[in-house]
């Protein structure tokens, strides 16, 4: 087993463990902190794939942005964080079945389905080529995504405004 593989399995274990903690921890703030760890694990996996840019963006957006906002929301509703949350209900059997089915599907697909893709571009050019691709070949989806985000932002602002008018 090479070093890369060792590191990969360590990181994979960390990511999965942290992800399990996210759904199983009783305290919702602990869940959020475990989520940070999960995102970091994913970022580490990106690094192993030589996608440093993606890893940095993953940390920046998911840890620095999304989790912070999550924690923000949790702490603003002060009583939630103190109380434990219920983590099981009557649908647990059903969901376990679905989860295992999906897991089996993905495992089968990764073992059998995909052929090896062509060689990767050297990592030092990854950022530049990614930028070039975003602004040439994929400019249309890129713009479509930004319009989607803009719409979401406008929607959020309208929702927030309406709240204020009520009181």
């Amino acid at each position, binding site marked *: 087993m090479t070093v890369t593989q060792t590191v990969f399995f360590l990181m994979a274990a960390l990511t999965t463990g942290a992800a399990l903690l996210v759904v199983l921890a009783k305290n919702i703030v602990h869940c959020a902190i475990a989520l940070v760890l999960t995102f970091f694990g994913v970022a580490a996996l990106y690094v192993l794939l030589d996608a440093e840019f993606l890893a940095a963006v993953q940390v920046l957006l998911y840890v620095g942005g999304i989790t912070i906002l999550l924690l923000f929301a949790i702490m*603003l*509703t*002060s*009583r939630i964080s103190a109380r434990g949350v219920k983590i099981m209900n009557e649908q647990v059997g059903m969901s376990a079945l679905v989860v295992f089915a999906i897991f089996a599907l993905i495992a089968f697909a990764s073992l059998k389905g995909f052929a090896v893709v062509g060689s990767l571009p050297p990592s030092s050019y990854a950022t530049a080529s990614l930028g070039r691709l975003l602004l040439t070949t994929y400019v249309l989806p890129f713009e479509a995504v930004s319009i989607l985000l803009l719409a979401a932002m406008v929607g959020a602002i309208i929702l927030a405004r309406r709240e204020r008018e009520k009181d």
Partner: protein
Amino acid sequence: MNQTDVIEPIHETMEEMYVNMGPQHPSTHGVLRLMLKLDGEVVTGVTPYIGYLHRCHEKIGENRIYTQVIPYTDRLDYLASMYNNFGYVLTVERLMGLQVPERAEYMRVILAELQRIASHLIWMGTFGLDLGNFTIFMYCFREREKILDLFESVSGQRLNYSFYRIGGMPLDFPESFLTECKAFLEWFKPRLPEYDAVMTDNIIFQKRVQGLGKLDQKTAIDYAISGPMLRGSGIKWDLRRNDPYSIYDRFEFEIPVGSTGDVWDRYMVRRQEMDESVKIVEQALRDLPPGEIMGKVPKKLRPPAGDMYSRVESPRGELGFYIVSDGSEKAYRYKVRSPAFVNLSVLPVIGPGHLVADMVAILGSIDIVLGEVDR
């Protein structure tokens, strides 16, 4: 008049957070406790809880002979002890109909106005501290230190002077005092523009205090606000001018007033009052006559039966003393009307609707001294 509900933590809900500010908090200027009702960071209600420094001052005053009360008055507003002495001895003198020698009157005014500068300096420094500017605090304390040195050379004390006596002053100025005091004023005058550079002209400071904690004239009068807070609201009311005591009618000085009654106006009033106090001290030093410093006072003070309320313009506002005498050596009833206590009572009206940070600035602009609030 707004009626404000008393805020108790037991009413806490999901949306509102109750924060206990003080009695141990860097910005409550002593042992004041504020109960804040917060919606996020916005203060929706505030109730001051006082009494952590209560010392039964008034009851003590009824169980000591008149002279013995003077040291207790020092501890009222411990940042302006001279003024407390002043107000108290003035009341007893009026009650007894005593005449105070000319020179003593001038000495009283000089010390009192120096005390006003010292008190405003402390206020300015701690106000800067409230807003996160630490440097002005050090500057102000440097100047106050010089005033305290002057007071020490006169009275031997640096904080609780007990220097005024019923009927006059106990000691004359030491020989060096006049030159030292003049030297101090010459040194102090160029310092004031320095404060302006650090505080008044600073855009961050201006933006922080302008438009905060507005106190309109009607509310100010309804709540019996006095001192710089009242003048900040635009009412030209200064007891030194409107109800002159001692020899204040002999001096020329301006009464700075604000216009909108916000924190900025209160700041500017106090800042300009320092200029005016310097003027008064200069005039008093110039006119200081020679002569006696202690009037003819009987050995045992037995004021005639009756009552007397007399007030002085302390750095914080109208400091009143009410004494009922039954003709004995001790007061029958002794009551202090402390400006800080009365001014603090308006906080639940002007506080809500601001952010926590502004709450600190508003509280700072009221300029409370807990020794006086609780007595």
